[in-house]
């Protein structure tokens, strides 16, 4: 279901988290879909189950999933997730903005684009 890049210097638990986030946010996994068990992933990818546990825990804290004792972990309702996505996109936005300003685009131009974009909706 997910894959890990061993050459990536990002910690494994981070990769696992992000992979699942991607799947959830892009609606490949829908609300109340069951996530694979820690054991299945550990076995399939040959990575430390404790690491996977940590990823699942953090996903739960961040609201992406919920777990039922004895049953497993499931995808949460997407409305909760919106905030994360927003924050991520805004960060990208900030990055893009700073680069554009570096290239000489003025705030006014940017504002115009935002307004314009809104108008196009």
């Amino acid at each position, binding site marked *: 279901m997910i894959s*890990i890049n*061993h050459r990536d*210097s990002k910690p494994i638990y981070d990769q696992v988290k992000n992979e699942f986030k991607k799947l959830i946010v892009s609606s490949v996994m829908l609300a109340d879909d069951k996530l694979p068990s820690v054991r299945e992933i*550990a076995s*399939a990818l040959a990575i*430390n189950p404790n690491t*996977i546990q940590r990823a699942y825990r953090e996903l739960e804290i961040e609201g992406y999933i919920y777990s039922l004792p004895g049953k497993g972990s499931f995808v949460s309702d997407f409305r909760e997730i919106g905030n994360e996505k927003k924050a991520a996109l805004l960060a990208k936005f900030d990055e893009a903005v700073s680069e554009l300003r570096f290239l000489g685009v003025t705030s006014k131009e940017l504002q115009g684009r935002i307004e314009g974009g809104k108008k196009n909706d």
Partner: protein
Amino acid sequence: MIEVKNVTKRFVDFKAITSLSITVPKGSIYGLVGPNGSGKSTIIRNIMGIYRPDEGEILIDSEPVFDNEAVKTRMAYIPDDIFYFAQANIKDMMKFYSGIYPKFSMERFHRLREAFELDEKMPIRRMSKGMQKQAAFWLSMSLSPEILVLDEPVDGLDPVMRRQIWSIIMSDVAEYGTTVLVSSHNLRELEDVCDHVGILDHGKMLLERSLSELQDNIVKVQLALSDDIALPKDLDVINTTTSGRLKTLIIRGNAENITGTLNALSPFFMDVLPLTLEEIFIYELGGADYEIKNIIL
């Protein structure tokens, strides 16, 4: 849980291990790293009750391990040099182990057969080293051990088999909470599988941490500041490399806090990057004046 408390081991006049302490929490996968001759195999043999420490003690689940049958029935050991009776094949060894270990599971043995494509009737003596290791794994996992001690386990195995074996081990860890102690001189490999690491050099422990502790408490930041701005003094910067205006800093501390602190300086460029285990070790030990190239392969 494995507790090694201040163990010293001498061979005639040579001190192989000095006041070594290791704690392997229950259900964790602990990687013991160190160059050849650092004492990894020695401490592992002490943990298995093969050698007896000259000083200190070794407890498994709070019981001393030496000459302790009850404790050792729950442990499986795969050494670098696999032990088998001269003419034995896998079937013979299986019969032997099933008589010795009360928890030997024939069911597991049969289930694991598919994972290893080995001929049970072939004398182990005639197998390649890699196949012998696979045989050892097959037999060991059938013991349903609570504690698995591996000395250079996947040394000599092809990538497919390595993955296969780790997969089986992980499955056990996830399902039964097996504790695993694995020694290696390859950090890159251990990075994926361990949640605790300890570095050994010349019989002494240089560093022992959980992986999360290590990863959460050290950051690599690429930073470009205007010339007049200085870095705050309370930042624990372990290493700085400069390339033109761009500084690459290795800073010890909480990632979020550090990011916040640095952001407040309004850098015109900042990027926070993760570190590999290898890099973490290099920088952690850099201050300790050791020849790191020897430790990390």
